[in-house]
């Protein structure tokens, strides 16, 4: 009887494996309860408003998780710091706070799991506001209701408001290129540029990069659209990694300033891989060294 039972063991194991695999479900990558997956759209809004006027807009708050969460909506001033445009949510002293112009239809609500909530708001510009660019950010922040102990996280996403108050606004700016090496040996070459805005409101710059080789063939082409706020300078980076061991490349860079294209002078870069340099040096050494050695030996044998 034991022998008969042993015959069924492999079948039992296979059946158990099939049952296990059959019950294994593949979960799509969705947020698990407590993770508060929050999305805001649009990520930014660009509006032009007359002084004393209002515009109505809305943002969508999307709950990407299965459970509902409470969301708090708020606004803050927005400005940037440095060429790398680190965002800041405080008011620059002596400036107007445009976040006070934004009036949300609600500041606290609940978004159900896998649901989208549309939140209308208005931007009401005071009558005597000077023409120019003003910047704020609209935040949507979750809170955790199931906090027990430890570090509780609040997840906050922002939608930037680029506001232009219409009127007589000066525009202008400049483009400068990051300095490039004349000779390059190995690795990536940073070929960025900086766009400055000397005007009174923001513009979107299109920074273009192109690298051509000796034959004129384009080996790199890149374009980037970036906001540039007034009285700031923004660095827009790109890079190029030469593939050939030796070559001559020409870097072409340009950017638009308030719609006007400004082109930087082309820069030529000579690329030589150090391994190739070493190989050439070795070859030269052999070509020079061998005849010298032969000549020395002949002299020795003559003397002998």
């Amino acid at each position, binding site marked *: 009887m034991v022998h008969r039972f042993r015959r069924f063991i492999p079948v039992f194991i296979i059946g158990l494996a099939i049952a296990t695999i059959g019950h294994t479900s593949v979960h799509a990558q969705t947020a698990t309860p407590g993770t508060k997956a929050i999305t805001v759209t649009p990520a*930014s809004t660009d509006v032009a408003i007359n002084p004393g006027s209002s515009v109505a807009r809305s943002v969508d708050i999307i709950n990407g998780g299965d459970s509902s969460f409470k969301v708090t909506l708020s606004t803050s001033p927005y400005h940037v710091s440095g060429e790398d445009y680190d965002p800041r949510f405080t008011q620059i002293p002596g400036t107007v706070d445009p976040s006070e112009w934004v009036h949300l239809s609600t500041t606290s609500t609940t978004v159900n799991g896998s649901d989208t909530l549309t939140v209308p708001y208005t931007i009401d510009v005071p009558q005597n506001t000077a023409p120019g660019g003003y910047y704020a950010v609209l935040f949507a922040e979750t809170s955790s209701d199931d906090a027990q*102990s430890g570090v*509780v996280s609040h997840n906050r996403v922002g939608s930037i408001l680029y506001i232009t108050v219409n009127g007589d606004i000066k525009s202008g700016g400049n483009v400068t290129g990051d300095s490039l090496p004349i000779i390059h040996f190995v690795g990536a070459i940073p070929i960025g540029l900086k766009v400055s805005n000397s005007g009174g409101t923001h513009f979107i710059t299109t920074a273009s990069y192109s690298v051509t080789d000796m034959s004129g063939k384009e080996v790199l082409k890149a374009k980037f659209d970036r906001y540039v706020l007034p009285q700031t300078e923004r660095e827009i980076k790109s890079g190029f990694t030469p593939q050939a061991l030796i070559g001559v490349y020409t870097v072409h860079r340009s950017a638009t300033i308030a719609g006007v294209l400004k082109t930087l002078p082309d820069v030529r870069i000579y690329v030589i891989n150090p391994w190739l340099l070493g190989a050439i040096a070795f070859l030269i050494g052999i070509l020079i060294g061998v005849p010298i050695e032969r000549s020395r030996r002949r002299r020795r044998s003559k003397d002998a």
Partner: protein
Amino acid sequence: MNQSIKKVTALASVPIFAIALVAVVSSVQANALTTSTTVSSAIGSIITLLTSSGTVNLDSTPTGVGVQTIASDTVTVSTNDAAGYTLKLNETGAASALTSGANTIPATAGTFGTPIAEVADTWGYRVDSLGTFGAGPTTGGANAAISGTIKFAAVPATASPQTLKTTAATASNDTTTVWYGVAVSTATPSGTYTNSVTYTALAN
């Protein structure tokens, strides 16, 4: 003779018929109506943030000399903004300490600019290879000896969020691991200590 004429007439009618047929077809084609439709799709910009758990547990059983518990939070950001995103961290409220009623575990004296190894009865955060935190790698664990090499900083105040990451392209489920550590000795009263932090994600 009459038959020959008939034959020629019959043969001549073929090309005439063909020419007439072509003329009719061309006329029909010239009068055909065409129209075109433009298909467009406006893709909205979005930014999404989620964290791995919502609460990072740092449960500890202290000893006289102190033990350290370290755990991580994974922050995931997605955006289709071509300029990428910036991720920041700050205290949600005014409190910088882990608090349980009247009892607190203060934040470490370390800062982002000068993080330090934790001493007993302090807590903080770190991100491997960010600033001067060091490469780590940090590993999670409970009630271990307090590390003298892994450095932490106090979570920055609400008004001064610290940038944890900046990207320059669209992102799909891009993750940042933030480590939290608490070092406690028996000088810390028992209790359930909490602190709230805020992660902020913004398109660039």
